[in-house]
């Protein structure tokens, strides 16, 4: 258990969510009250961003960042679908699907291990490393199928189910995956030695090293985790679109950073929680949904979201003084 318990963070975040809902309801006349159906809808919309944000939280928590995640989603989707499409219209098999997923996630993990190894062993800043890897990854993804979308081959109903099937006609698989990732990350960050060590590394890397923590190994694992989660998001995305789009993923890293930061993760490192990030993603999701339903022009939407992020982080910094 970290001393930075999330408890203090949850209050203001929940208050912000309630305020937003009331604002949309009574000022703009938009209904996003949390009926089960609406809530599930919202969760589905934020699932990709949230999965990316969970990984991003880890990197920011240890004083780093991963700018490559958006392009990793595209690379993973492309590699996975490319692997499936290899056999043309041959009948689908569970083994084939599993292999494709492993290959796709493997590609993501490789990008993550390059990020992590460079961050841990070289003295280059993670911002630069992952910015460069963003470009490398994008280049790799675009090298498939002359950068054109690759449709998911017809018989792969199982793959398409990942993004589109709803359990009991109610809960979409992406929401289930997102919640599973969330609970797994809560355990990893808030219950294990590994998580405890991440807070120490983010708070003071030297002190962590002097306490006998293998800081480099932890750092590499964090980047591999972050990238692999981006791979999971990429698979969901490709399945939802019925196709892999090599040029996809632009700007997703920024959404992930925004969710983590609104959720209370500090850029100086050592401060942040998984539930904070989930609430951060929900806040941004409500904003998106509400502004859309209110028919606000997208240019104004960006403006409002930017100001909300500034306000959230300002309040956080001000409160900590």
């Amino acid at each position: 258990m970290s001393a930075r318990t999330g408890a203090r963070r949850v209050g203001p975040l929940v208050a912000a969510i309630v305020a937003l809902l009331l604002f949309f309801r009574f000022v703009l006349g938009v209904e996003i009250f949390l009926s089960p159906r609406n809530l599930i809808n919202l969760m589905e919309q934020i699932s990709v961003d949230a999965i990316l944000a969970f990984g991003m939280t880890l990197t920011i928590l240890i004083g780093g960042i991963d700018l490559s995640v958006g392009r990793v989603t595209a690379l993973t989707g492309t590699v996975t679908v490319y692997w499936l499409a290899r056999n043309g219209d041959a009948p689908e098999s569970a083994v084939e699907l599993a292999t494709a997923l492993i290959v796709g996630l493997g590609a993501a993990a490789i990008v993550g291990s390059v990020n992590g190894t460079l961050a841990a062993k070289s003295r280059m800043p993670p911002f630069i490393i992952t910015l460069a890897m963003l470009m490398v990854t994008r280049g790799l993804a675009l090298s498939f199928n002359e950068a054109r979308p690759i449709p998911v081959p017809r018989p792969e109903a199982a793959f398409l189910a990942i993004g589109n099937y709803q359990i009991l006609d109610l809960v979409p698989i992406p929401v289930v995956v997102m919640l599973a990732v969330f609970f797994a990350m809560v355990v990893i960050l808030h219950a294990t030695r590994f998580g405890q060590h991440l807070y120490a590394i983010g708070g003071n890397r030297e002190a962590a090293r002097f306490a006998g923590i293998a800081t480099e190994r932890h750092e590499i694992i964090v980047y591999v985790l972050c990238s692999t989660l981006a791979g999971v998001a990429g698979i969901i995305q490709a399945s939802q679109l019925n196709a892999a789009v090599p040029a996809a993923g632009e700007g997703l890293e920024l959404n992930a950073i925004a969710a983590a930061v609104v959720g209370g993760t500090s850029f100086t490192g050592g401060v942040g929680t998984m539930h904070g990030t989930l609430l951060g993603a929900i806040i941004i999701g409500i904003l998106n949904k509400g502004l859309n339903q209110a028919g606000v022009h997208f240019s104004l939407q960006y403006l409002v979201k930017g100001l909300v992020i500034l306000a959230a982080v300002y309040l956080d910094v001000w409160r900590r003084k």
Partner: protein
Amino acid sequence: MNVTPPSRATGSGEAPLVELRGVVKRFGSVLALAGVDFHLRRGEVHALLGENGAGKSTLIKVLAGIHAPDEGEIWINGHRTAIRSVADAGRWGIRVIHQELSLVPGLSIAENIYLGVEPHRWGLVRRRAMRADAARLVERLGIDELQEVDLPVERLGVAHRQLVEIAKALSQEARVLILDEPTSSLSEVETEALFSTLRRLRAAGAGLIYISHRLEEIERIADRITVLRDGASVGTRAAAGVDRRELVRWMVDRDIGDVFHRPAPASADVALEARSLRSAAVHGVSFCIRRGEILGIAGLVGSGRSSLARALFGVERLEEGQVFAGGKSVQLRSPRDALAAGIVLVPEDRRRDGLVLIESVAFNIALPWTRRWCRGVWPSRSRRREIVDRTVQSFRIGGADAEACVATLSGGNQQKGLVGRWMEEAPRVLILDEPTRGVDVGAREEMFRIIIALAGSGMAVILISSDLNEVVGLSHRVLLYRDGAIDGEVLPGATSLEAIMARLTGAGGRGS
């Protein structure tokens, strides 16, 4: 607040440079200053003494314009005034040399000295003028170590950075100079150089407020002494002929026993042996330490003592040489290797290398032992609590709840925590690098007792300190360390401090 009569006549007949009357400062419910009276004359060094938490830092911050007092009056040159900001303090000529260094590592010595007050013309920095000014200033202050004013500060050691800090404070007119533990990282020679600078300033009519835990320094430099206890001034007296023990009693309000005593050296198994260690900063070091022995390493700042400690802890790479721990050859590539070999280091700079300052006391104490309380998936709060409670109790870490932020603890308690947390599994070798730096008198004496007790339990202790008294007083043997190598060994009592100092500085030759 009452209207007060004009200031009382002081000894010299003129108004004091600075006078505080009944200054009170509260932080929430905590009374940091409970009515302090203090006056500073022109041309005096006025020592401010007190245990950590007695209110010295708060008092300085009031004078520096960082905290506004809640009650009381501040008079400067006979004018009642308020110091509302740091800039205000600067206008009165009040300069503070803080304990925490405030330099920009990437900038040169000259750039740091003139940071924010760069000489300029038409908006452009006049670099040549700035360098010339800096060189002149350094020469005037007699700080030869800083002659290369273009050197980036990050290439300087802690002691030299401290000197840059002092040069920076003195680059502008200083009527009142406040020094907070200025010598904590200085060697004897550097301390003397600083003192001669301070004496010159005193002769020029400046008033100096000097804070230090080292009573012998205060005897050397101070004219008058004011003691603070629990946020109030206990009294002021002339420094000449003051009795050290009485002073300590005044500060802590209890008699403390004789600090230095030496248990008989143990003859036992070899705990650690180093053979011709070499690294970037260590040039062929061999030594051996037995269980229960306290081995002192005396050396000037810059002699590379800390590099030896860091190499033994696997933080700095060893290029050559062998280390045997408990008779077995060990590879020390990381602190993890060192810990596995039973070697523990309490680092010189506890804020940089020791503590996760944004976390709690308990977090920091339990950090090396996560494998004990995070068995399996879910961590055990009760096992963690046991570890923390054991350390807090056996090392008497007082002052705060274990869940409070570690930054709120005094330096002494932080240091005790850093030593104590390793005792969960008694290490073979405990390396202490400047264990009493920035630690108050009471805690310092407590640290000595801890060191003696740990050695008494069979632990081998390597003690590194700039304070020669401390090393010689506590150790069974003392290695003289110079330029990354051992330059001889002395037995305490057999050689005078002056002779040791002469050898360390290279003034005495080797023949003695």
